[in-house]
């Protein structure tokens, strides 16, 4: 229960919550912390902050303070790879990455959590790459004092399964590159893919185990894939031969190498002719020609998730559609743009 008292009569009482001060463009934070004992000298400053009354808190048995609530909520929300401190600022607790990795948000649980009255949690986008210590999410209870039961229910919803907010580590893996195309294989044109894809892989701390070149020949592409698998590649990237020409036989090569699950086509531009296949749980990614011409493509959306151990199937590729349209900006600001953020 909250009791409203004039500031002049609040001397000697303890503040029920942080009192925020905002100096535009200069400062936003707690001018007074919760628990501070109000003294005569504080009256003038409190009035300058627009506080003519303060709340005295007298909690009923079934009520809790916003700081207690924030702790319960954070505890429910935080899954693996998340660090947080029981040190609410203005009633809010922030959740941070405990490791380098990609953010994994259970969007359904997050929505269900936020449907509960008087609680909130805001997060970064799902699948965003983060470094240890980066801010991932923040939560708070909205009122100063509230009933305990809905707070605990919200925390239970958030804690369902593996928790609502997690950071998955991006594993260091060994990858193989297979550059297909008779024009490259025969030296008619210079390959641009190998250095470009190698850098993308190595930027994640992973290594390129082998780079193979194959002409537009189904059998030879199949053999190159099998050699990669035999050498211990945990991921295989194939370029070229993903389009609709009669010489585009990479898909057939992947199929003949033993791919059971194969998804050709994604709801992403650039990257419509991208391919994901699996042979014995080893992912094979078919990178179409757009990978040469665009700095960022569907590959950049899929790669971190593959390296974090996610299985990318038909559903995941389809869900890229919302937000999967690159605006081809003159100056690319990815990942600080909407591309790929709709899932």
């Amino acid at each position: 229960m909250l009791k409203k008292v004039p500031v002049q009569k609040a001397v000697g009482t303890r503040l029920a919550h942080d009192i925020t001060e905002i100096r535009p463009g200069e400062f936003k934070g707690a001018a007074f912390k919760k628990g501070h004992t109000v003294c005569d000298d504080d009256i003038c400053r409190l009035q300058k902050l627009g506080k003519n009354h303060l709340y005295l808190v007298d909690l009923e048995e079934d009520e809790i303070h916003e700081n207690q609530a924030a702790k319960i909520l954070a505890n429910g929300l935080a899954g693996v790879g998340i660090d947080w401190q029981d040190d609410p600022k203005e009633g809010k607790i922030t959740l941070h990455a405990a490791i380098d990795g990609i953010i994994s948000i259970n969007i359904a649980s997050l929505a269900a959590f936020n449907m509960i009255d008087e609680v909130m949690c805001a997060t970064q986008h799902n699948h965003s790459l983060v470094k240890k210590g980066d801010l991932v999410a923040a939560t708070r209870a909205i009122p100063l004092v509230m009933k305990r039961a809905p707070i605990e229910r919200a925390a239970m919803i958030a804690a369902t399964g593996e928790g609502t907010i997690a950071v998955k580590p991006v594993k260091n893996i060994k990858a193989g590159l297979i550059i297909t195309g008779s024009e490259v294989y025969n030296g008619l044109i210079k390959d641009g893919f190998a250095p470009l894809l190698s850098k993308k892989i190595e930027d994640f701390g992973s290594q390129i185990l082998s780079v193979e070149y194959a002409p537009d020949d189904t059998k030879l592409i199949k053999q190159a894939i099998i050699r990669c698998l035999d050498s211990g590649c945990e991921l295989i990237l194939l370029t070229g031969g993903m389009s609709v020409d009669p010489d585009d036989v990479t898909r057939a090569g992947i199929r003949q190498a033993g791919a059971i699950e194969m998804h050709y086509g994604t709801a992403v531009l650039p990257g419509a002719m991208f391919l994901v296949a699996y042979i014995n749980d080893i992912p094979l990614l078919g990178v179409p020609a757009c990978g040469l011409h665009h700095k960022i493509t569907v590959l950049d959306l899929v790669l971190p998730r593959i390296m974090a151990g996610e299985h990318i199937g038909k559903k995941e590729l389809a869900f890229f559609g919302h937000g999967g349209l690159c605006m081809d900006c003159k100056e690319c600001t990815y990942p600080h743009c909407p591309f790929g953020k709709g899932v």
Partner: protein
Amino acid sequence: MESFDTLVNEAARIHGHLCPGQVIGVRMSMLGCRLIGLDEPKCHDQIKKLIVYIEMDRCAGDAVAYVTGVKLGRRSLKFADYGIMAATFINLETNIAFRIVSTEEARALAPFYAPDIAGKSAQQLEAYKLMPDSVLFRVQEVIVKLKDHDMPGPTRKKVTCARCGQVVRDHREVIIDNNPVCRPCTDDAYFSDAREITWEHMDWVPNNKVNNFNTLLNNTTIKRS
């Protein structure tokens, strides 16, 4: 208790179709029975321990009745016509009661839990299987003051309507001018303008060798006086 899938399939068969209400009703009943500590509510030793108040005459109500085994005629099923997707499960032995309310937010959240299912009903059906109880339901511990004449068992009291002579059971009469009156004789009945009729073949009794139900069905003239 049987598995969720078995209960849903059988509830759907008895109700007539599989729908989101069957999933809600089955899960509501499973949770209700769990909370009041009855694992086999249809078994002989538990069937008399349970009363369920159902607050909606919707699909889910049939699933609740099926899973719990409560029945109108046993007086273990009570219908409170509130229009709320809720049911209260009472353990008569321990006198513990929980009211389980199906949340409105679960409907709004269905697209998040089953984003790959098209169509509102199919999406809700799948989503309600995936949502945790904490999302599907809110639960209140409640006190239900059951009157003796609402309990299962023999009729507690019979009175005769002072206006029409109808026998009224279990305190359902209305007292007007110190006299018991049946509900139809008040202005508070669900029907009006009642008048008695006669009909052809009024002498019919079961196992009639000449006229069975089907031969009479299209051959019964109603006589209004």
